[in-house]
């Protein structure tokens, strides 16, 4: 789980943060905090699906479920066998 969180945090940092942005933590609100817009969320979802060989149905991939690294990790856990 901790390793998964590190992987997700690293991806989010690379994919969404600009160089002069503050660092984020596992709890930082991503969508409601305006770091990841819901429209750009698709690449995160695709990354998780490829990385963990899972498929997250659209009704589960909500902005709420994607709102922090912690929440994303919980969601992913649901689908990895």
């Amino acid at each position, binding site marked *: 789980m901790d390793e998964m969180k590190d992987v997700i945090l690293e991806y989010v940092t690379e994919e969404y943060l600009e160089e002069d942005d503050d660092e984020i933590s596992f709890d930082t609100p991503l969508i409601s905090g*305006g770091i990841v817009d819901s*429209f750009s969320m698709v*690449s995160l979802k695709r990354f998780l699906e490829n990385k963990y060989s899972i498929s997250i149905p659209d009704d589960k991939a909500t902005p709420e479920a994607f709102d922090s690294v912690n929440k994303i990790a919980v969601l992913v856990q649901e689908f990895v066998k």
Partner: protein
Amino acid sequence: MSFNDTVRGVYQEQLKSIKDAGIFKQERFIHSSQAADIEVEFPTGSSLKKVINMCANNYLGLSSHPEVVKAAHEGLDARGYGMSSVRFICGTQDIHRDLENQVTEFLGTEDTVLFPSCMDANAGVFEAILTKDDVMISDRLVHASIIDGIRLCAAEHDTFKHSNMKHLEKKLQLHADKRLKVVITDGVFSMDGDTAKLDEMVTLCEKHDAMVFVDDSHSSGFIGKTGRGTHEKCGVFGKIDIITTTFGKALGGASGGCVSGRRELVEMCRQKARPYLFSNTMAPVVVSGVIKVLEILSGSTERRDKLEENTAYWRKGLTEAGFVLKEGDTPIVPVMLFNAKLSQDISKDLYDEGIYAIGFFFPVVPQGQARIRTQISASHEKHHLDKALEAFIKVGKKYDILGKTKQEIIEKFGA
């Protein structure tokens, strides 16, 4: 079910939460034609106030230009008021095709198709030219109408960091296996006033076999030496595969839009784009006005040159006064205030001083990046800009933000 109290209550609740969030939009009624000097009724019911308009997209000052108005009158007389039909049934006049040909010439493309608006062009174009085997890779700050168009299209979608060409290249590599790739950007970004790096983008797209899409709504008519748009400015004239633009801003400001670009792509729009197929196109009177606009702009660069001078004068004035601006050289000049409430307060104070400029904040712009977006026009005379500058300085002093850095403003007011 009728519109009973329960149903009404649902909407009243939603409207209340919009109001509570402080993002309820209210119109201001303008009792004059669009120009640098306008007469405004605001709040509704109050007496008219003469103000200087600093937030119109009337970049070239053509919205109420006598020659354009005259041409529109003549068009009205010669071709009537309405068509009562969509294009492909019996809604196409000779002047529609004339305008399309003139836009093609002006933008240096292969062909053009008109749409009721650029919103419609953006909403319809992707679905018309792409399938699920393709990918759309868009800049993260593209206009809302492009986002809608992307949502309506079955092709896969990805985004890249704003104007970040390294990130774009990574995405092009990631999607190398797709049948067709389209990279999507605004030419000039409407909230920040910065210009897309079209030269680098075209090189990347040539390397990775991707098409380039540019929405030049905030550029057509005045960006580039002869005002053709960002492709002219960036030295890639003739190399953009799809350009969408509006006639609702610099090009007369009435309404209408188009898709202009590769012949086959434009033809696909005629065959398949739903806003073209299922909605009436631009009215003859508007078409006649736009034809005159393009004639004026093809004959002389005087207006865009004046706009460029005005813009430089305005940016210099604000910078010397000590405001924090978004850097750039376009007539969209955002005065950064960072705090949402501060942007609203300053907008209101400016209005009291006779200056009409609107504050923008999240979610229209990113969190903590509230601003007043000023937009310069060729119809501004030096005295307009001087008066506006005077008002900005007076209000800036009131809040003690002149000469303050971003950090200092945020410390004082919060982000």
